[in-house]
């Protein structure tokens, strides 16, 4: 057992963090309204964000889920917009030369059929019990909605056709597990990023003649934010490790636990961030609400924390 970052993972973390800060700042995502900027997407592609787990002779880096989890943790921290998880997990599928790939789990009839980033997609994939299906996003009848997260544009789809089969049921299950684990990594990053933002504010903001971060009522709430972010991070890594290492049992449980712990962490930290920023937390200008809103978007993908909590209970009993 050596459950720590490898030298390569340290490097991946640093380069991804630099990329997010330098080329993909939150201000740029705000200006673009969360639309996928092709130049920014090319930066992510160039860094191997989508192809890093592909074999080297397929243009990838031959890396593992844990490596991807480290990268996605940073992308979450940087609040990078776009269909990151779907494009990553679709990397091995035959989707022609599509570079921006979105997706969703096929909604049951009558359930809200909401697709993220539809207007920017080259390909749309749908997972259901029978497999993985590719649809032409330009041919889908949909109406744009006003998004809850200003950096995640959404559409309501009128009816989703069956699509062309690009994978069987096993592929669907694998993509779902990988997508869940990587969404947990993004959520862990969101939880951690908003913790950093709020700690910085509490050191800077002064009331009663001293930084508000010196008051226990504030610093204890910040300590709880760190605890939630750390729990989310280690379990997101553990879920990825379970997918990498076949000798570890209970993969399904590890992945579900990651989604629960990370989802709850991101959501609770987002709420705490708005509160601890005081009046500024209510403003559009401060980023706190963007983390909170992203937490909701990510929680609603690949099964909510509530849904996974029920699933785990069934595994315990």
């Amino acid at each position: 057992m050596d459950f720590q970052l490898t030298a390569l993972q340290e490097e991946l973390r640093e380069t991804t963090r630099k990329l997010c800060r330098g080329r993909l700042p939150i201000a740029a995502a705000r200006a673009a309204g969360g639309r996928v900027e092709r130049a920014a997407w090319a930066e992510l592609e160039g860094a191997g964000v989508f192809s890093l787990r592909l074999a080297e002779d397929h243009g990838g880096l031959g890396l593992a889920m844990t490596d991807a989890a480290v990268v996605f943790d940073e992308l979450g921290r940087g609040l990078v917009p776009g269909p990151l998880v779907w494009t990553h997990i679709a990397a091995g599928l035959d989707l022609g030369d599509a570079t921006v790939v979105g997706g969703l789990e096929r909604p049951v009839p009558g359930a809200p059929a909401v697709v993220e980033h539809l207007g920017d997609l080259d390909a749309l994939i749908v997972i259901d019990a029978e497999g993985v299906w590719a649809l032409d996003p330009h041919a889908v009848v949909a109406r744009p909605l006003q998004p809850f997260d200003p950096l995640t544009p959404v559409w309501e789809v009128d009816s989703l056709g069956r699509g062309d089969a690009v994978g069987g049921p096993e592929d669907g299950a694998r993509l779902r597990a990988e997508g869940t684990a990587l969404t947990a990594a993004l959520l862990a990053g969101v939880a951690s990023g908003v913790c950093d933002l709020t700690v910085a504010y509490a050191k800077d903001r002064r009331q009663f003649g001293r930084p508000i971060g010196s008051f226990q009522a504030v610093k204890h709430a910040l300590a709880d934010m760190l605890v939630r972010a750390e729990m989310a991070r280690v379990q997101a890594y553990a879920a990825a490790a379970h997918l990498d290492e076949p000798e570890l049992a209970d993969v399904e449980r590890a992945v579900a636990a990651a989604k629960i712990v990370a989802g709850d962490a991101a959501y609770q930290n987002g709420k705490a961030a708005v509160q601890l920023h005081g009046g500024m937390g209510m403003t559009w200008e401060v980023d706190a609400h963007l983390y909170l809103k992203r937490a909701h978007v990510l929680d609603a993908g690949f099964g909510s924390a509530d849904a996974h909590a029920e699933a785990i209970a069934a595994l315990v009993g």
Partner: protein
Amino acid sequence: MQLAYSESERHLAREVRAWLTDALPRLGPRPDRDDWAGRRRFDTAWQALLFEAGYAGIHWPRAYGGREASPTEQLVFLEELDRAGAPDVGVNFVGTLHAGPTILAEGTEEQRSRHLPAILRGEHVWCQGFSEPEAGSDLASLRTRAVRDGDEYVVNGQKVWSTYAHVADYQELLVRTDPDASKHKGITWLIVPMGTPGITVRPIRTIAGPSEFCEVFYDDVRVPVANRVGLENDGWRVAMVTFAFERGTGFVGEITEGMRLCRQITEAAKRVRVGTGTAWDDVELRRGIGRAAASFDALWSLTAWNVSEAARSGVPGAGASVLKLRVGEAFQELADVGLRVLGRAGLAIDEVAGVRGARILEEYLRGFGLTIGGGTSQIQRNIIAERVLGLPKEPVWTSS
């Protein structure tokens, strides 16, 4: 990043498992919870078995009877013990995990050879004398006084929360030797034989009933200067050395206990009748159990992370405080669900309508101690906020 055990770690697991299959049946029946003489006999007999097999103080240096196991090997060992339902450390807790390691690090050669083998063999039971009625979270303000008289210290005062003092042979005692120095500077660390005249031990009854906690009173207790560990007035530093022994394995018992409690609450939920079904039909309760199980999975992952960090660097990282804080909360969240599952069956410790709530009720009450003992959650949050997040200290209020 590798979460699975290596081949050599798995080899150790198999070795320990084989030994446990042979050793556990050799232990007699477990004593009743409140039979303290019996518990001392049982726990020290277990310690002696561990010693014979070379597993006592598994991470201690070979020179003192250990086998210099790495942090990950120690984790493997603890996990196998738990899996087999082996006894926990019990009355050997302070000796093997606290006083022993402190003497190992700071004691004289004479102190080491006199005490360490006896601790490992289960011959000597130790207790702790740190907290006082007026010195809890603010431990350094302790007032139990030791005055030098020739080659002895004369001790007067009172300690509280002294675990296993009523069955102990020795105590690690923090005393004030210089009342004029600043509070951290006038403390000394002493080895005190519990049979010394002038010591009175009074057990404490807790919200969970009779307990391992005691009050200890000192009335002109004479302790040889030769029993001092470290220099006079350097006892605070000596006591803090203990934290450096933490290798990330400190809460393995609570985490595995939490996972076990998850299963027991699930079993209870399927038996407790509610309306036309059972408590298990209640989605809110199922989610409560599921969320708690996820928390304990994450706590196990954090343990693996911390242990791996200690294996690499030799010292614990910031993860220790995070783990301590979260373990207690997660345990309480789970036990809360347990009480809601029991419903009216939880009004009695006896079996009611085929449901026996005793264990869940006991763990519920015991759980309160997890966010108080060993540094309250409020103190842990201060530590995390100030030492990890770098937030400024709260202004110190003085009575003048």
